[in-house]
């Protein structure tokens, strides 16, 4: 298993948000192409949805074929029907909804806490040279610790209840936000900041009028990365120390040889992760329309 805690974080300038906005081109003469919607912000229409569904449909067909028409035994590769059946069975026991809800609750709580902390730290380090020199090395070192290393410690310190899991998820969610926001604040176009100063904006007014709006796109992409990290850390926490949730469903099923339930858990994670990301994506569109 490879937990890629740092993988997501350092992506500072996703093409969807900063495309075509280098300081040089920002205010200068623009070529007409820049007026067109940027690549990542294409409209979603029927054709897009249909194209996006091609690969899942293909995979489903292959899966159906492989499970029904080949000699691979069911305990290795259950059929789609069996996986659905496992879902129905769990739902009848009242476990499916509980597991989904508890996992969702953990992800959202941890994400909210972590993102807030990341935002605060990112703003502090990005805006203050002193805070940067004082905090950045420590935070960098904490970020370098693989997520699983925290788990035993958190379990000992905080018991085996909700707190350590939420804390772990918050740690995971905080860093992408911290990294993107602090870097973006440090790189706000100095020309714009100077213009703000020239027109009489003080420190606070400069922050709210120039610096924060300038980093809105980075904040959003940081939040998206943080949400992905939150799901990652959720499963890490539930795999190792939990008696409920989708991660627990994974370990429990592995121990009992219930491959159908493992498939179910993975599918659910994919659907939940993609859905939550899409929801943030909707918010992103609205915000980017306003702030760019």
């Amino acid at each position: 298993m490879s937990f890629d805690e740092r993988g997501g974080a350092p992506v500072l300038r996703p093409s969807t948000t900063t495309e075509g906005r280098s300081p040089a081109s920002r205010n200068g003469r623009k070529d007409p192409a820049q007026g067109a919607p940027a690549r990542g912000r294409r409209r979603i229409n029927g054709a897009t949805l249909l194209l996006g569904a091609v690969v899942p449909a293909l995979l489903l067909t292959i899966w159906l074929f492989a499970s029904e028409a080949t000699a691979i035994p069911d305990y290795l590769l259950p059929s789609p029907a069996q996986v659905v059946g496992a879902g129905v069975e769990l739902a009848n026991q009242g476990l499916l909804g509980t597991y989904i809800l508890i996992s969702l609750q953990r992800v959202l709580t941890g994400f909210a806490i972590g993102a807030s902390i990341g935002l605060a730290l990112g703003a502090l380090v990005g805006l203050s040279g002193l805070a940067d020199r004082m905090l950045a090395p420590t935070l960098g070192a904490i970020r370098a610790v693989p997520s699983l290393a925290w788990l035993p410690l958190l379990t000992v310190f905080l018991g085996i209840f909700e707190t350590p899991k939420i804390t772990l998820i918050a740690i995971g969610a905080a860093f992408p936000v911290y990294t993107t926001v602090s870097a973006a604040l440090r790189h706000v176009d100095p020309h714009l900041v100077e213009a703000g100063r020239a027109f009489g904006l003080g420190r606070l007014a400069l922050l709210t009028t120039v610096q924060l709006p300038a980093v809105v796109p980075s904040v959003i992409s940081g939040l998206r990365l943080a949400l992905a990290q939150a799901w990652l850390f959720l499963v890490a926490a539930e795999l190792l120390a939990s008696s409920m949730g989708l991660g627990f469903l994974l370990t429990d099923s592995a121990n009992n040889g219930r491959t159908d339930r493992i498939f179910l858990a993975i599918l659910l994670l994919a659907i939940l992760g993609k859905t939550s990301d899409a929801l943030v994506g909707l918010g992103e569109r609205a915000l980017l329309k306003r702030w760019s």
Partner: protein
Amino acid sequence: MTSIAPAPTQTTPALPVSLNGVGRAFPGAPGEPERLVLRDVELKIAPGEIVALLGPSGCGKSTLLRQISGLDRPTAGSLTIDGTRIAAADQRCAVAFQEPRLLPWRTVARNIELGLPRGTDRAAGRARVAELLDLVQLTHAADLKPRQISGGMAQRVSLARALARNPGVLLLDEPFGALDALTRLTMQDLLVDIHRAEPATIVLVTHDVDEALALADRIVLLGTRFDRPGATISRILEVPGKRPRDRASTVLARLRAQLLDALGVPSHHDR
């Protein structure tokens, strides 16, 4: 109610500017000596005067403007506005930068709003912005974002934003550089009109000799002597005549030839 209540758009009186032996050196790359860009700039600008700064690219015109605005500090000499030292980002000045520097997420109108003096009340501010939009002929673009307008339009927004202050000292860094010839002439006439209505002290950087001749009371040439580093004032020319001036007059033609000579451009002028 007595008649001394301030007018809604209060005009700030034009202020005198004085540059006393101003020099600016930038630290060089590690291991290199510092680089002297400006030295010994000595200039007194009268209230309401229009001074054009002319000089080759990279000689330090923008740097000199930044000293007057208080956005940068000289490494030698001192500057005053109205007899007092210039503060960091001095609020008696308004600047139109060489680049438009508009906030990309704000509409044209909201960008101009940024230039209003702090504490302008909403209604007065809105009226002033509408008036300025009309002045720079951008009423139709009021609700567009900077990425939706052309470079020349952005420059006019930047000019309007600087005018919004009603400043005592107006600093314009190549304000008409990105405009087509016709709009440029219109904008120059506009500046003359504005100056007559609200006579600020104006320091205007330009590369356009004719623009300097049309607008300035004095043209200040910045240049570097071959034998020592740092640009300084190499020549000051008084431009005669009230604005608006006849652009084709023979007096201006003779001055143009002199200026081009001083800038090292052969003027092909019959003497």
